[in-house]
């Protein structure tokens, strides 16, 4: 069953007027310009084109914006704890343990000189007091949970010895072993084949429904977000153009209520059911960013 964001329950994450700025030699680059949302125990999709600020939003929540960047917000609260006033140490303890992130490409995100099993066990021991033995047991169980058939064999493999789909599952296992409340998945399946992609989504879906995790699913794939998420934020130029229930993306009758940018994005996708001689191209209105 779905776990909708009920107003009586405290949200997992509240963001108000989030801004991410980069101070460069040629001026300030504003990557995120005033984004607000709350996250409950649900699947929240963030879609947008490259440069829309969707990945920066995920990184800002984890305090992973690199040096010349600054993160500003009116409010940024994780289960009643203010992230803005929190000291670095406490924030770091939250990261990985309570709020975690799965990156896009396992080829670049795993340590190439350590076996995948050791990396998962390390993630566990950083956050929990556990013996090496116990951490290994836990890692093997976690590998099994992400549908890896021979956990014992895979544990000993190095990242270059596993396929893309398996690498992605290893990363998910690593992020989930600490049992976070919020998982930020930044394009977790875009490097994968469609059939593997569905298996990964199934794992994420089970975690939301069974463990009540909050999932922020960052993607450029509108079809996927529409079929997988509960709510969707459509971003353009660092701003939310609109937030809508995912089911309404495909709803023809709701078209008149949609933002022109959302319609533009949907319109330029080739569609099996509605063949068209020429695809629509996007016209962008500077007023959207005003």
């Amino acid at each position, binding site marked *: 069953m779905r776990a909708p964001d009920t107003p009586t329950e405290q949200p997992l994450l509240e963001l108000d007027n989030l801004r991410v700025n980069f101070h460069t030699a040629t001026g300030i680059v504003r990557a995120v310009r005033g984004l607000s949302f709350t996250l409950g125990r649900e699947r929240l999709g963030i879609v947008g*084109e*490259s440069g829309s600020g969707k990945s920066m939003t995920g990184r800002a929540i984890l305090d992973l914006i690199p040096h010349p960047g600054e993160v500003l917000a009116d409010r940024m609260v994780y289960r009643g704890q203010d992230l803005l006033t929190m000291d670095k140490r406490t924030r770091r303890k939250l990261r990985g343990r309570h709020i975690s992130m799965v990156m896009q490409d396992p080829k670049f995100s795993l340590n190439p000189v350590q076996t995948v099993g050791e990396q998962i066990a390390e993630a566990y021991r950083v956050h929990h007091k556990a013996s090496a033995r116990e951490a290994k047991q836990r890692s093997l169980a976690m590998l099994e949970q992400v549908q890896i058939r021979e956990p014992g064999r895979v544990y000993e493999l190095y990242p270059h010895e596993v396929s*893309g789909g398996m690498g992605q599952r290893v990363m998910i296992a690593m992020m989930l072993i600490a049992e976070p409340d919020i998982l930020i998945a930044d394009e977790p399946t875009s490097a994968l*084949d*469609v*059939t593997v*992609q*569905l298996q990964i*989504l*199934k794992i994420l*879906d089970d975690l939301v429904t069974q463990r009540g995790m909050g999932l922020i699913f960052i993607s*450029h794939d*509108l*079809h*996927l977000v*529409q*079929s*997988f998420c509960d709510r969707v934020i459509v971003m353009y130029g660092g701003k939310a153009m609109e937030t809508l229930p995912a089911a309404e993306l495909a709803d023809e009758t709701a078209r008149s209520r949609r933002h022109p940018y959302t319609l*533009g*994005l949907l319109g*330029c*996708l*080739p*569609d*099996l*059911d509605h*063949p*068209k*001689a*020429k*695809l*629509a*191209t*996007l016209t962008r209105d500077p007023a959207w960013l005003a």
Partner: protein
Amino acid sequence: MTTQPAITLDRLNVSFGDSHVVKDLSFEVRPGESYGIVGESGSGKSTVLRVLAGLNRDWSGDVAILGQPQPKIRNKAFHRAVQMVFQDPYGSLHPKKTVDDALAEPLMIHGIRDAEGRIGRAMADVGLPASFRFRYPHQLSGGQRQRVAIARALVLEPTILLLDEPTSALDVSIQAEVLNLLQTLRHERKLTYILVSHDLAVVAHMCERLLVMQFGRGVEEMTAATLAARSPKTAYAQQLLTASEGFRRKAG
């Protein structure tokens, strides 16, 4: 059909060491047709394209282009007729060469005099402003780079274009622009396309017929209409189609 096929592939086999990546593959593409090849990673679809382009010399079987049987090492006339566009416009353009250098090189190799005019025309054809001519790849966006790659393929005025995932590295809005451009060029110049893609909707939009590949074999050849009607015959093609429709929760 009395017309000679543009591309004929007969019992193509490709092996890399012990792994047999293309197995007894045969198909024909008619002149002016757009033919799609779909499959998952490792299905051998890009390898087929590389064999056709002459980039892979380790194969057996028969390959004929415009009725001419092709040897392992192709001659210049072949490259004038057949050109390829690669997937990643960030990797397929030399970072230290300008757009002008990239477009001039094929002309120089083939000893074509009117470089000035041809480069100008090729850039106009793909919708690049003339002011971009002396820019470097890092000064261009992903969509603009892919236009340069298409212009580079067109500058020799080929009749066959081999397209290897030409839009998968691009945003959807840019993808639409590039696909529209490819459609227009094809109709204006009567080009023949082979388009390799993992995106069934893109293939259905661009191609009249397509081939589904799995583990190096051609699983099923069908028309785009069959795909749109969701009526492939084989289980694998059906599975691929279902998977591409997005995520489905089991009821209850």
